[in-house]
C-alpha cells in the first residue's frame, strides 16, 4: 500500500440549506495523479477549496503528510508545507517579465514567509535564476523570458502558472481545470506538459471537465455527484462503472 499524502476524513460543508459536500472520505497516494470529476455543481471546487484551507468545512478533517492539519492555516502557510495550487483563472504577475514571474516563487520558497533582504542584489541570485530558467525551459518559453506576462495568450498564461508552481517543487500540486476555456491545440500542449511532469513523481490532484485530459493523465479518478463521492478507481474501472455513466453522462457510452 502506497503512502498517503493527503487524507480527507468525513468532510461536510453546506452553504445555507445546500449540502455541498456530504461526508467525503478520500486518500491521495504519493506520486499519483488523482483526478476528481463530476458534473457542474457537484462540489469539485468546494472540495479543492477545503483542501487548500480557503474554506473551512463544517465538520471533518484534512491532514497532510500523515498528521499536519490543513484546516485553519493561512494560504502562505499551506504553501510552506508543500502544497501549491493552479487556479481556474490564471493567477500570474501580469506586470512582470516571464523570468521574474518564475523567479518570485523560487525566491519565496527559499526565503520562507518573510525575509527582509534589502541589501542583497538580485544579480547575485544566480541559483534562483537558473532554477527559473529551467522551469521556463520545461514549458518551452525560455526564448520569451523578457516578455511581460500580460501579453501572453490564455493558454500560455496557464502554462506559465504551472511553471511557477513547478519551480517550487511542491509535494502536492492542485490543478483546478488546467485546460478550461482552451483551444484544442492549447489543450494538447498542456496534456503533453502534464504527462512530461508526471514522470517527476510529484503528487497531483486535477479537477477537470475534459474527459480526454482526465483519461490521458490520471492514475486514479474519483467521481463526485451532488456532494458525494460515488466511485473511485482506475480510469478503466471508472469507464466501466454504470453508476458513473448514469450520474455524469446520463447513461451515454464513454
Amino acid at each position, binding site marked *: 500500500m502506497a503512502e498517503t499524502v493527503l487524507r480527507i476524513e468525513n468532510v461536510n460543508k453546506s452553504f445555507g440549506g445546500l449540502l455541498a459536500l456530504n461526508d467525503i472520505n478520500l486518500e491521495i497516494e504519493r506520486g499519483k495523479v488523482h483526478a476528481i470529476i463530476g458534473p457542474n455543481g457537484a462540489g469539485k471546487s468546494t472540495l479543492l477549496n477545503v483542501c487548500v484551507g480557503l474554506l473551512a468545512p463544517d465538520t471533518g478533517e484534512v491532514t497532510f503528510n500523515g498528521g499536519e492539519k490543513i484546516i485553519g492555516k*493561512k*494560504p*502562505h502557510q499551506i*504553501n*510552506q508545507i508543500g502544497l*501549491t*495550487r493552479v*487556479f481556474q483563472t490564471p*493567477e*500570474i*504577475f*501580469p*506586470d*512582470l517579465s516571464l523570468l*521574474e514571474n518564475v*523567479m*518570485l*516563487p523560487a*525566491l*519565496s*520558497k527559499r*526565503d*520562507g*514567509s*518573510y*525575509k*527582509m*533582504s*534589502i*541589501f*542583497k*542584489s*538580485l*544579480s547575485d*541570485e544566480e541559483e*534562483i535564476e537558473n532554477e527559473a530558467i529551467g522551469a521556463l525551459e520545461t514549458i518551452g518559453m525560455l526564448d520569451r523570458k523578457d516578455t511581460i506576462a500580460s501579453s501572453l495568450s490564455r493558454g500560455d498564461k496557464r502554462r506559465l502558472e504551472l511553471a*511557477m508552481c513547478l519551480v*517550487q517543487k511542491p509535494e502536492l500540486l492542485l490543478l483546478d481545470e488546467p485546460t478550461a476555456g482552451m483551444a484544442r491545440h492549447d489543450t494538447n500542449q498542456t496534456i503533453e506538459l502534464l504527462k512530461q511532469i508526471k514522470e517527476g513523481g510529484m503528487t497531483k490532484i486535477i479537477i477537470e471537465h475534459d474527459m480526454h485530459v482526465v483519461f490521458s493523465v490520471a492514475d486514479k479518478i474519483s467521481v463526485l455527484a451532488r456532494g458525494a463521492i460515488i466511485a473511485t478507481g482506475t480510469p478503466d474501472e471508472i469507464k466501466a462503472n454504470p453508476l458513473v455513466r448514469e450520474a455524469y453522462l446520463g447513461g451515454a457510452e464513454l
Partner: protein
Amino acid sequence: MLIFTAAVLSMPIWLDPIGANYPDLLQKFAIFGIFAIGYNILFGLTGYLSFGHAVFLGVGSYTAVWSFKLLTMNVIPAMFFSILMAGIIAAGIGYVSLRRSGIYFSILTLAFAQMFYNLAYSVLMPITNGETGLQLTMHDPRVIDVAFSREVPEGLPSTDFFGISMNGYSGFYFCAVMLILAFFIYLKIFRSPFGMKLKGIKSNQKRMKYIGSDTRPYLITAFVISGMFAGLAGSLMAVTDPLAGAERMQWTASGEVILMTILGGVGTVYGPLLGVGIIKYLENIFSSINESVLNNFFSFMPQWGESLLTSLTMPFVGEGWHLTLGLLFMLIVIFLPGGVMEGLQRIKDSIMNKKNIEESEATAKESSDG
C-alpha cells in the same frame, strides 16, 4: 550611481542658466527628492497609495527641532531621532492602515494625517506650540551643548554639523549628501529580492500569498522604510530652517508628493526626482515672474505684440503657476501615463529605432553592392 552623485553635487553649476541656483531652492530639491523617493518605495513598488505621508514629514521636523532645543544644535542626533520617531509612528499607522487595501487604505492614511494635523493644533499644543510653530528660544536647555561648554553665540544659535554651519550652500551640500545616501539605499531596495517581492505584491497579491509569502509584514516594512525617508526629509527641513509648523502635515503636502511621483513616473527609479525638480522649479521660479519680467522677455516684439503676449501669458505665471502645473499634470496623465520618464523612454526608443533602420539599410546596401 557615480553619475548621479556628480549630477547632484554639481547642481549649482548646471541649474545656474535656468535661474535655479540659489541655496534655498537647491535645498528644497534635495529634501523633497528624499521625500519623493521614499514615497516611491511604497507607492511605486507596492502600489499602495498613501494620502498621509506628510505626517512623517511633520513628525521629522518636530523631533528635529526638539532635539535642537533639548540636546544640541548638532544635526546628527536630530536626524537620528527624527528617523526613529517617523519609523515608530509609521509602524503604528501602517499596522492599522495596511489591514485594508486600495481606496480604503488611502482613506485610512488620510484620516490619520488629518488626525495628526488637528491634534497638533489642539491636544498636542505643548509639543507643537500650535499655530505659532515650534521655534528655538534663548532659554532652551541644550544639555549636550552645555555639557561640552560650547560657546553660545549672540542671539539664536544656528544648526551645525560639527562646527560647519548649515546655512546657504553648506546646508545644500549637506542635504545633497543625504540625498545621495538615501538614493543609494533606495536603489539597493529596488534591485533586491525584497524589492522584487514588493513588485509581486503590486502585481498580484493573491498569487504572492499562494507562493508562500506573507504579504503583510512586507507591506509594513515598505511603509516604515518610506516613512523613515519622509522623517529624514522632515528633519532636513528643520536643519535648514529650525522651525516646525503643523502646515507641513496638511493633506496638501501629502498630495504634493503624490503629484511629484506621478508627474515623474510611478515605480521608475529616477521619475520621482524629475517630478520634484519640475514642481519645485515651477513653484519657485514661475511664481516669481511678474509683468515687468514678461515685458522684458517679449521686448523684441512690436509694442502691440508685447502687450498682447504679456496679457496672454500673465495668468500662467506669478500667482497663476498652479494653472501651469495643473495643465502640465493633465497633459502628462492623459498622454504619458507613465510620467515624464515614459516620455524620455519613447524619445530614446524612437532614436534607437531610427538608428537600427539606418544600420539595417546600410548593411542592406553593402550586401547589394557586394
